[in-house]
């Protein structure tokens, strides 16, 4: 294992698909956490699950990991039912929580989880060494987890999910609670995996992460996938060639919000957002503001993003 202990990731993955979810339903009492989700992944792709907190992303991930029994529907990993020994071996899970032993060192944690997957001897040591390299933790390998920084713990948490050389990895919000520098380091780790052709499911409620890392993005809300496509296709399907105008206006607060609403826009804090078909609509918008007695302080034009798509599809902010 000179650089990569996962040679299988480099070879073409034969059918069946890495992941097939069919009409999955999971309820907790009266709450329907996952409401009839179906999706299929292609080998080597990174699929983003984008949605606000409580949308059902983590429950979907738990069902795929075999840790939640569906009320209806099926989950198959490389053709094997979720939770089966074959599916467990093929799947790596990076949970949202820091699922580590705090009183063990980084190396001891990796060894422990490796043994749980049946790794022994040289194979185990090679896998541990690769994981420490990948997570850039070689120099802290002997330190207790409790003494590592938040970012290091996150990286170790990810490495522990890959110790057994899985073919499909579930990453459940791996950047929660880390600083921007550590987040970038985590992005680089994931991008390294992507280059090697690893199939990844990545859940997040940060659209920037989904845009940067994922080939396709599933927008999840109220337990359903309300859109699933590439970033460009999602934006195009919602906005076609339209653009967004962001305008900061000054005037009596009630008057500003009433005027923005009357023009079909929305007010986010002090900035008004309008969707326009073309740049020629900007002048008309400015004239109308002036006629309404509002002063324009700042103006910008942008292409709609996933945040805009989510708002367009649900009528709510992604981080509501």
């Amino acid at each position, binding site marked *: 294992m000179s650089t990569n202990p996962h040679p299988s990731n480099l070879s073409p993955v034969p059918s069946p698909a890495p992941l097939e979810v069919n009409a999955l339903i999971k309820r*907790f009492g009266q709450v329907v956490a996952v409401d009839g989700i179906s999706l299929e992944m292609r080998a080597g792709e990174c699929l983003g699950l984008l949605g606000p907190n409580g949308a059902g992303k983590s*429950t979907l991930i*738990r069902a795929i*990991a*075999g*840790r*939640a*029994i569906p009320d209806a529907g099926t989950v198959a990993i490389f053709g094997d039912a979720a939770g089966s*020994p074959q599916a*467990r*071996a093929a*799947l790596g*899970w990076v*949970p*949202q*929580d*820091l*699922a*580590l*032993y*705090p009183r063990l060192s980084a190396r001891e944690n990796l060894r422990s*989880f490796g043994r*749980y*997957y*049946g790794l022994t001897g040289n194979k185990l040591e090679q896998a541990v060494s690769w994981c420490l390299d990948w997570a850039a933790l070689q120099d802290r390998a002997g330190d207790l987890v409790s003494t590592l920084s938040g970012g290091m713990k996150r990286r170790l948490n990810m490495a*522990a*999910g890959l110790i*057994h050389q899985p073919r499909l990895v579930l990453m459940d919000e791996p950047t929660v609670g880390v600083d921007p520098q550590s987040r970038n380091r985590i992005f680089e780790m994931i991008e390294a995996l992507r280059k090697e052709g690893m199939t990844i499911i990545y859940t997040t409620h940060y659209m920037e992460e989904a845009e940067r890392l994922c080939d396709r993005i599933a927008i999840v809300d109220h337990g359903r996938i309300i859109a699933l496509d590439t970033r460009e296709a999602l934006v195009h399907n919602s906005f076609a060639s339209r653009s967004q105008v962001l305008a900061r206006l000054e005037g009596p607060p009630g008057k500003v919000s009433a005027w923005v609403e009357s023009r079909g826009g929305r007010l986010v804090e002090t900035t008004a957002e309008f969707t326009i078909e073309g740049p020629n609509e900007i002048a008309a918008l400015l004239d109308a503001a002036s006629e309404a007695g509002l002063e324009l302080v700042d103006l910008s034009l942008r292409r709609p993003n996933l945040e805009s798509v989510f708002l367009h599809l649900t009528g709510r902010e992604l981080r509501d």
Partner: protein
Amino acid sequence: MIIPIVRTAILALRRDRGSMVLSFVVPIAFFSLFAIIFGGQHSTVPKIKVIVVDEDQSQASRQLVNGLKNDGSLLVITEPEPTKEQPQPTPYTASTAEDSVKAGDVSVALIVPQGWGANPISFRGDSGAPAIQLLSDQSDTIAPQMVGGLLQKAAMTSMPLTMAEQSMKYTEQYLGAYTPEQRKKMEDTLDRLRSMQSEQSNGAKGSSSTSTSSGGIIAVKTRSVVGENKKSPMISFYAAAIGVMFLLFTATGSAGALLDEAESGALDRVLSSRITMTGLLAGKLVFNILLAFTQLTVMFLWAWAVFKLDFFTHIPGFIVMGLCTAFAVASFGILLASICRTRAQLGALSTLLVLTMSAIGGSMFPRYLMSETMQKAGLCTINAWAIDGFTKVFWRDLPVTALWPQVSVLLAIGIVLFALARRIARRWEYA
């Protein structure tokens, strides 16, 4: 300034159920428990079980045995309990009575030897007749002294002085008058009897039962049949008693790692690997067994090094009892951890249960000091069975085969508790 702090602390306490239980429920529960054990809420004073073997079968010996039977403080047994195999058991003999004391069935046995009735009154051991034998187990320091005293009482009440005086009168009436010399001797004898009665009624202590003879009205030869060569009678008892109590605490604390792992998500990660819940619990069980056995070993080695406990001649019995006890306490710990939702809950519940079990089961004070009801209740605890087993090994020097009741019960407890824990742990398997 102070009141807001107090209000916040009260609010926090109200939300912390574990602390509330420890603060209010545990003390009340323990107060009640100790009150029940020692507070005389039971009208029945614990009776001392004593085997009586009447080899003499004379009128005097029968009177004495009847006197003992009529004593409310004693439970006199002359033959074993009937069983299916032996519906009509053979009465105890001196040999089987001694075996019963050695086995720990009773703490004391009395053997009334043949020929004793010919001259039952010893007058400080000068009768020349064979003395009553009191066979004792030194691990119970109270029962032999109690029985020795009650024996004298029975003799006094069942063969009073007046009987002696009456017999003198009948002798004179039917056989003729005493010579002056005979009369003087008789009067001297009666005077000594009166003097002895007077001493005892004034509360003066006669010399305590020794290994040779009694200073009471009847001669008693006391013999320790268990532990006569032991240097420190209670060391093995306390090593086991205290050891088991702390084993229970350690086992619950160690099993609590399950709760930490569940809370951190490590449990989910482990269960998504090749490890099943049964495998995980079995692994925890084995670790806790090893931990508990090591703890016991350290405890007994300390007892050997510091208190001269005869450890190395009892290794097989120690291993058998140590492993069975460790299995039972490890299962107990895992069951408690699987029942509780948080570490705080586990702390409160384990404190309550372990201290209760230790109090009833004899870890804090010997069970023979408790009422019969409490002694029976103690059999519901791991402590009682473990202590009984270790006592058999280290005190009674019984072979490993004699441990089968303790081994069977501890293994059964371990299996049942682990099965229950596995059942309850299903809540962690799937959401």
